[in-house]
């Protein structure tokens, strides 16, 4: 079967359980089983070839430019792990079928399980280290789901998050390390990369890469000091623990070390780091394990310890050590998985895993007892079980290992580790199974159904068989695996047998067993001592760190983003000025500035008015109406200045916009408080003044420089001046730029205006549709309200002004192309004329006489502008290409018609519509309960009075 298929099967299969669960639990589990079984078979098909030393590969490009490819290869190492993952996987699936209660959603469970299985298979088959990273992180994610499977258990959720955090951290470190490695080697393909040992170890990046990779491996394999997450993960359902924490995920770290062994090992750094980490983990894990009362807790720490053992062996970097490591991987997987499962059975039957509440179970559940006993003895390293063989190898290897020039420390500690493991193994065996039958079990236990003990039984048999016929059963596999671990064309050969004669290892073993039993005999005082001695609990430390990080994060986020716009804005201004100033000082200013113009009296007066007006507005700003009145000055002065400085169009626009803006502000102010309270402290005001002043000075300086600098190169505006009439058909260059040269800007500009009006309308509608409406209807004005809502004189005046104003609008519109003016100003003039009507005769009266909905006016404005532009398509010209011609109907003089006028008409309509819709919306807010639409345009009209009979 293709390696792709093997890796893909579990992922594809992950969809099935979800679908199958409707068909019942058996169907669901069966299908899941079939999937991993077929993957296993597909893998084992390649076994013979691999054992012959061949390497099966399969590859397809994914991101070749990056060097990330979906390339797989199968060698001894891959075969070993693949078999463990898939084989034990099948057993777990069977076991879980009976373990999970009917309340648990089995579909999800098997989905997660298969996802995890696929990720693991992916890791061990990857030929590309980036691909390996992908699968690596996938195991973290899927194990997060598996560990948190029981959502209702807080331990489950916390355990899951802890595992995710720790392995996630490792994963990220690993990403770094792998990328470095790949960059050193110039390839991410393992098969090529593993050839480059010397290149890699010579590179300065070797050490950082090594550290990062080991960080990844250690976190995954729960090596000291990252061991603490593993026991917490025991909140997971037992099948998960049995699978992840005996055979697979925790072994991924070992796999990684083994995989990269050919290029990473053999250096002092490797030896020291790996060996010490392993050694410490082994001893410490075993020691802690002894005093665990939770069956799974004990097993978890024992797993930690055994992983340490294997790590240490890899650290030794000798052939014998590697063989030992490989062999122990197999053995540990078998006995530990079956132990987890039996622990699960006990839990399942007795409803507790607490060793202190158990004991004497051997009479009640003999089958489970036998399985557990075999596995425990193997774990203790008692012959003839397989655990014994690999432990001997470990001790043997340890016996010949020097730490620096110290030759006794490693053997001693190794023996100590073995001693501890004997202790906890026997504690498990004796305290759970032996002793008298108790009558206070939470639930009366008895042997489970066949299906549930089948899997552990099968593994127990393996434990025995491998113990007895190791060479025959796994010799070849071990050799092949060791070969691919050693790499560099090594051909290690394992001599797996029970009796090696009297070796140092045998003595150490003996000491370990005896010492272990003695320690167990002294369990009670030892336990007392253990709990008496204070020691740092990594879990507490971890939680402390995570807690601190989280609250720090919350604090930073909260204080930085507390919704204080005043601060945000201050930061904005300061940053903008500093950055600009820094940029300015970095460059060169002009050496020959322009000649400035002398100002005569009027400009100076205007300037004075502007400065004073501005100052006063700021000074009075809390008295809002006053501020608005003074603001009027500034508008007027600025428009006059534009006019004076040869920008009549600007003057017109500024002025008309100014008026409408003022009207808007007044309309809004009608609802707002009329005074702003004095809220800012003096210090605060001083700060603001400094910021404002600083920015002001900077901007003034910039503007001054700008005005006294000549263009570095001729401005494109010269073209506009030269061609405005010749090609644009207009004398008012500004207008021609607006409707022709840069008509697209104007097109956007009127859209903006239209959108603004739509928004204002929408917000108003929203308010009137909400609870705000009531308060609006009931609101009492800030001030006494004068009589005479629609004064006679005003009404009459506007009656005359409206047509005249429209006339003016038309004029300004038509002349815009050649004189100051144009669609925009015309639109504003007409809009303001209409506004006068509204102000004089009231909203209702005027609105009833308004035939064209303003929405439509806006839209048609935009559309007309667009259509005029699209018209150009028909003489095969780009959007907005204008055309014009001169026409004559006697007796009229020759006059010009330009498509630009159509465009300008669009502008005109959009402006009128936008302004009016805006004012309309705002004035609709002012409705008070009891308002009736005005019947007459003016409140007082003698000609309406009954007493007046004439005409």
């Amino acid at each position, binding site marked *: 079967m293709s390696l792709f298929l093997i890796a893909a099967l579990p992922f594809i299969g992950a969809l099935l359980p979800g679908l199958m669960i409707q068909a019942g639990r058996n169907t669901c589990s069966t299908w899941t089983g079939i999937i991993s079984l077929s993957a296993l078979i597909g893998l084992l098909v390649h076994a013979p070839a691999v054992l012959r030393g061949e390497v099966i590969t399969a590859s397809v490009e994914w991101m070749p430019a990056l060097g990330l490819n979906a390339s797989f290869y199968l060698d001894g190492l891959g075969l070993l792990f693949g078999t463990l993952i898939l084989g034990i996987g099948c057993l777990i699936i069977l076991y879980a079928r009976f373990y999970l209660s009917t309340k648990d959603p089995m579909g999800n469970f098997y989905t997660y399980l298969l996802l995890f299985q696929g990720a693991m298979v992916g890791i061990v088959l990857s030929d590309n280290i980036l691909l390996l990273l992908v699968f690596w992180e996938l195991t973290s994610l899927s194990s997060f789901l598996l560990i948190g499977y029981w959502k209702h258990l807080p331990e489950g959720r916390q355990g899951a998050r802890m595992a995710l955090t720790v392995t996630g951290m490792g994963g990220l470190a690993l990403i770094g390390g792998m990328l470095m490695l790949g960059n050193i080697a110039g390839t991410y393909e393992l098969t090529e990369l593993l050839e480059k040992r010397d290149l890699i170890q010579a590179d300065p990046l070797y050490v950082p890469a090594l550290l990062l990779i080991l960080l990844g491996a250690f976190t995954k394999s729960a090596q000291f000091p990252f061991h603490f997450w593993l026991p917490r993960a025991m909140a997971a359902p037992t099948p998960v623990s049995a699978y992840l924490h005996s055979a697979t995920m925790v072994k991924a770290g070992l796999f990684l070390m083994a995989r990269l062994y050919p290029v990473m090992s053999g250096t002092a750094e490797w030896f020291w780091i790996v060996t010490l980490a392993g050694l410490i983990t082994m001893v410490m894990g075993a020691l802690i394990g002894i005093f665990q009362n939770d069956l799974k807790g004990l097993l978890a720490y024992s797993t930690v310890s055994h992983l340490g053992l294997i790590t240490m062996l890899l650290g030794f970097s000798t052939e014998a050590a590697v063989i030992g490591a490989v062999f122990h991987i197999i053995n540990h997987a078998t006995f530990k998985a079956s132990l987890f499962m039996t622990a699960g059975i006990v839990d399942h039957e007795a409803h507790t895993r607490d060793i202190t509440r158990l004991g004497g179970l051997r009479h009640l559940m003999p089958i489970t007892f036998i399985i557990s006993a075999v596995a425990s003895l193997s774990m203790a390293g008692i012959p003839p079980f397989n655990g014994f063989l690999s432990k001997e190898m470990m001790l043997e290897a340890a016996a010949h290992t020097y730490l620096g020039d110290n030759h006794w420390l490693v053997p001693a500690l190794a023996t100590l580790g073995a001693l501890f493991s004997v202790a906890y193994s026997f504690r498990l065996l004796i305290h759970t199974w032996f002793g008298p039958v108790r009558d206070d079990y939470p639930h009366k236990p008895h042997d489970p159904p066949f299906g549930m003990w089948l899997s552990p039984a099968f593994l127990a048999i393996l434990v025995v068989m491998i113990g007895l016929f190791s060479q025959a059963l796994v010799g070849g596999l071990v050799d092949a695996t060791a070969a691919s671990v050693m790499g560099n064309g090594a051909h290690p050969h394992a001599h797996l047998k029970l009796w090696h004669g009297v070796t140092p290892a045998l003595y150490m073993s003996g000491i370990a067993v005896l010492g272990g039993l003695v320690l167990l005999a002294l369990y009670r005082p030892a336990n007392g001592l253990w709990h008496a001695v204070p020691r740092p609990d990594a879990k507490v430390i971890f939680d402390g760190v995570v807690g601190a990080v989280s609250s720090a994060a919350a604090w930073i986020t909260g204080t930085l983003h507390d919704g204080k716009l005043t601060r945000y804005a201050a930061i904005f201004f300061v940053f903008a000025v500093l950055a600009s100033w820094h940029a300015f000082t970095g460059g060169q200013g002009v050496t020959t500035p322009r000649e400035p113009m002398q100002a005569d009296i009027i400009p100076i007066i205007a300037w004075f008015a502007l400065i004073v007006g501005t100052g006063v507005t700021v000074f009075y700003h809390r008295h809002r109406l006053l501020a608005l009145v003074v603001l009027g000055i500034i508008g007027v002065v600025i428009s006059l200045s534009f006019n004076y400085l040869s920008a009549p169009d600007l003057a017109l626009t500024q002025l008309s916009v100014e008026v409408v803006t003022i009207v808007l502000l007044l309309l809004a102010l009608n609802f707002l408080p009329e005074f702003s309270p004095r809220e800012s402290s003096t210090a605060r005001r001083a700060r603001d003044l400094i910021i404002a002043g600083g920015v002001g000075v900077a901007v003034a300086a910039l503007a001054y420089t700008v005005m006294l600098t000549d263009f570095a190169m001729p401005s494109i505006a010269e073209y506009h001046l030269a061609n405005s009439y010749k090609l644009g058909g207009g004398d008012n260059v500004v207008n021609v730029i607006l409707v022709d040269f840069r008509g697209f800007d104007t097109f956007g500009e009127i859209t903006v205006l239209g959108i603004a009006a739509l928004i204002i309308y929408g917000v108003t509608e929203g308010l009137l549709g909400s609870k705000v409406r009531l308060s609006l209807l009931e609101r009492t004005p800030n001030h006494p309200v004068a*009589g*005479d809502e629609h*004064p*006679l*004189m005003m*009404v*009459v*005046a*506007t*009656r*005359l002004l*409206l*047509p*005249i104003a*429209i*006339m*003016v609008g*038309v*004029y300004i519109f038509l002349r815009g192309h050649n004189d100051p003016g144009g669609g925009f100003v015309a639109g504003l003039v007409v809009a303001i004329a209409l506004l006068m*009507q509204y102000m004089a*005769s009231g909203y209702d009266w*005027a609105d009833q*006489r308004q035939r064209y909905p303003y929405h439509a006016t806006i839209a048609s404005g935009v559309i007309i502008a667009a259509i005029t532009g699209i018209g150009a398509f028909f003489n095969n010209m780009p959007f907005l290409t204008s055309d014009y011609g001169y026409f004559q109907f006697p*007796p*009229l*003089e020759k*006059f010009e018609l330009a498509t630009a006028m159509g465009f300008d008409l669009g502008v005109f309509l959009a402006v009128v519509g936008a302004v009016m819709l805006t004012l309309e919306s705002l004035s609709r807010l002012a409705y008070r309960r009891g308002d009736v639409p005005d019947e007459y*345009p*003016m409140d*007082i*009209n*003698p*000609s309406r*009075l009954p007493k*007046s009979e*004439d*005409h």
Partner: protein
Amino acid sequence: MLRRIFPHPYLTALLTLVWMLLDNTAGPGVIIVGLILGIFIPIITAAYWPDRPVLKHPIKIAAYVLIVLYDIVKSNIDVALIVLFKSNAARKPAWVTIPLDLKTPEAITVLAGTITMTPGTVTADVSAQGSALLVHCLDAPDPDAVRDDIKSRYEARLKEIFE
């Protein structure tokens, strides 16, 4: 019929004039365009000027305008003198009620406007039923004289023109 084309004949004339002023030329084309607009615009804005007044004696408008212009010039001089040379204490400001015979809003407005533009008087308000104007005098030793002067000099003429 004619009404519908020329809702406001005088307005049309005025607008045409405005157009010529705007265009600053008096060619036939300009007049035609002005006329077109002068007819068109009143039609679309007709709704905003309901029950428009009928001018009884439009000719008398000219006379009225001339009188007012003369008064304005005169008033400016008076006011200037008051502003420059008369102490605030010496001034005798006064509120005057001008009872109205006029009924047409347009007429009343013109009267009020005239008052405001002419010697030391400002139309401050209308009475609640529109039977009188409230006028403020900058310096009026004899308020009644002011009232009679206004009624005879302006209101009478406006009455002729509008009603």
